[in-house]
């Protein structure tokens, strides 16, 4: 936790160095939000029945997905475990990470978590506020929904982190994961409910998506935020998310122990 706080602090300081950068980042999130808003407005005008939710809810879902994507997108952060590992493996500097007294998974979690928390506070919050004011983003239906959304968002991050960490483990074996990362983000985009909520997919695809962990990353927190699920279902989906996070973190840990044993560092 202490490392996490330190990482958050470093992120904030480095962001303070480039203030125009920050403004441009808020600007581009607004553009992306405006884009999905127009898309769903156009679709809704064609046939409101198909969307399955009132237009403001759907717009909120799509815009919030964009906002979350700023911190969740696989290649967005240089601190994301797979990017960090691949960079350190390529340059041979991974040995310095191994020398530190904290386990690699925890180290990366603190680093990535710090950066993501920073992104959430200083990028997503302003973008969210602006979109509430100007783009018609709704507030969650109740305080309970809001709190559940935040909690679910943290779990989403943990699931995404552990998937990324597993991808990073691949990097130890193949030393290069750029291509795999591209394929991975493609799959993530389709199956996480980021672009289209799952209820619009054909039934056979919904069945597939329901047994995979990806939908927990975007669809679960977003559905909670717009109030598409009842209180009981919220609890169920939070438990499901927590279970996925636990399983995937554990899997990452096991894989790391396996990789660590056979690791040979390129003499950089």
């Amino acid at each position, binding site marked *: 936790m202490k490392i996490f706080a330190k990482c958050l602090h470093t992120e904030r300081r480095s962001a303070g160095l480039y203030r125009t950068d920050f403004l441009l980042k808020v600007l581009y999130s607004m553009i992306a939000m*405006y884009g999905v808003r127009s898309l769903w407005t156009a679709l809704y005008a064609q046939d409101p029945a198909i969307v399955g939710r009132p237009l403001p809810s759907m717009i909120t879902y799509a815009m919030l997905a964009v906002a979350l994507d700023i911190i969740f997108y696989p290649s967005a952060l240089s601190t994301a475990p797979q990017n960090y590992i691949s960079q350190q493996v390529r340059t041979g500097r991974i040995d310095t990470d191994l020398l530190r007294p904290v386990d690699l998974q925890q180290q990366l979690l603190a680093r990535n978590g710090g950066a993501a928390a920073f992104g959430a506070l200083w990028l997503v919050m302003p973008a969210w506020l602006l979109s509430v004011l100007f783009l018609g983003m709704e507030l969650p239906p109740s305080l309970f929904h809001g709190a559940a959304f935040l909690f679910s968002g943290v779990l989403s991050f943990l699931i995404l982190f552990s998937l990324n960490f597993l991808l990073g483990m691949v990097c130890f074996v193949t030393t290069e994961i750029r*291509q795999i990362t591209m394929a991975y983000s493609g799959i993530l985009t389709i199956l996480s409910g980021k672009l289209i909520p799952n209820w619009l997919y054909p039934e056979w695809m919904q069945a597939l998506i329901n047994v995979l962990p990806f939908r927990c990353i975007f669809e679960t927190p977003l559905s909670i935020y717009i109030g598409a699920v009842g209180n009981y279902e919220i609890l169920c989906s939070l438990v499901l998310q927590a279970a996925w996070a636990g399983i995937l973190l554990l899997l990452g840990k096991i894989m790391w122990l396996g990789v660590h044993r056979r690791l040979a560092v390129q003499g950089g």
Partner: protein
Amino acid sequence: MREVKAGLKMYGSLLKMTMRGILQYRADFWMSLVSVSLLNGANIVQLSVISWRFHALGSWQVGDLLVLYGLFMISWSIFSVFFYRLSKIEDEIVSGSFDVYLLRPVSPFLQLVGGDIKYTGLCDTLLGVVLIPTGLSMTGTHWGLWQIFWFVIFVLSGGAIAVCIKFLISCVTFWTTKASALSQVFIQIYLLTQKYPVTIFGPAFRVLVTGLVPVAYLNFYPAVYLLGKPDAPPWVCMLAPVIAMVLAGIAALVWRRGLRRYNSSGA
């Protein structure tokens, strides 16, 4: 004229050198093809699901949307194969390796562009080449010689426009030493025009992508013209080559001023 000829020859030999280095890794190409298809597959799945559920996006059927997407990929691949290095100017300036180009007796632009080609960008081309005929057969549109002629013109001007915009954004680095966030803003804009017809985003956005950052000329206007859509009058679409030339002129000017202003970061 002699200078141009010498420049082209130099570019040729630089490319030959680069190709030799690249051909060492052939498996990389096939890996890229799979991942580029999956990455774009996400967008195509989205467009298909939307078109399947809603039957169309405005007046655009799924076939039209595939042509729109394919046109973007082909034009864009001109940038991503041959001029990809222009987007790396920021890195070169920040790390100080840009200085090297200024010391050699060949134009820095040629050295930069000829230093690398990203042959994996060919996967974008390939995807476009597959998508356009698929889309056309779905909409039942047939292209005569006239349409094919304009298709070539549109792809070339679209490519030039993509290159110039990327180049101009990179040139900002000469003044600010940082351009990545600006480039992100641009990416967000073209991610929208790549997939969706510009018409759904309202008039302000349309002015932005037609006049200010003319990415709509990569795929939207060409698609409107080639598919006979009612979204814009034909003469606006046919401005594509003019816009490409104007933009190239601006880019050349800015590049010259940038070079004159350049101070090494001294790293």
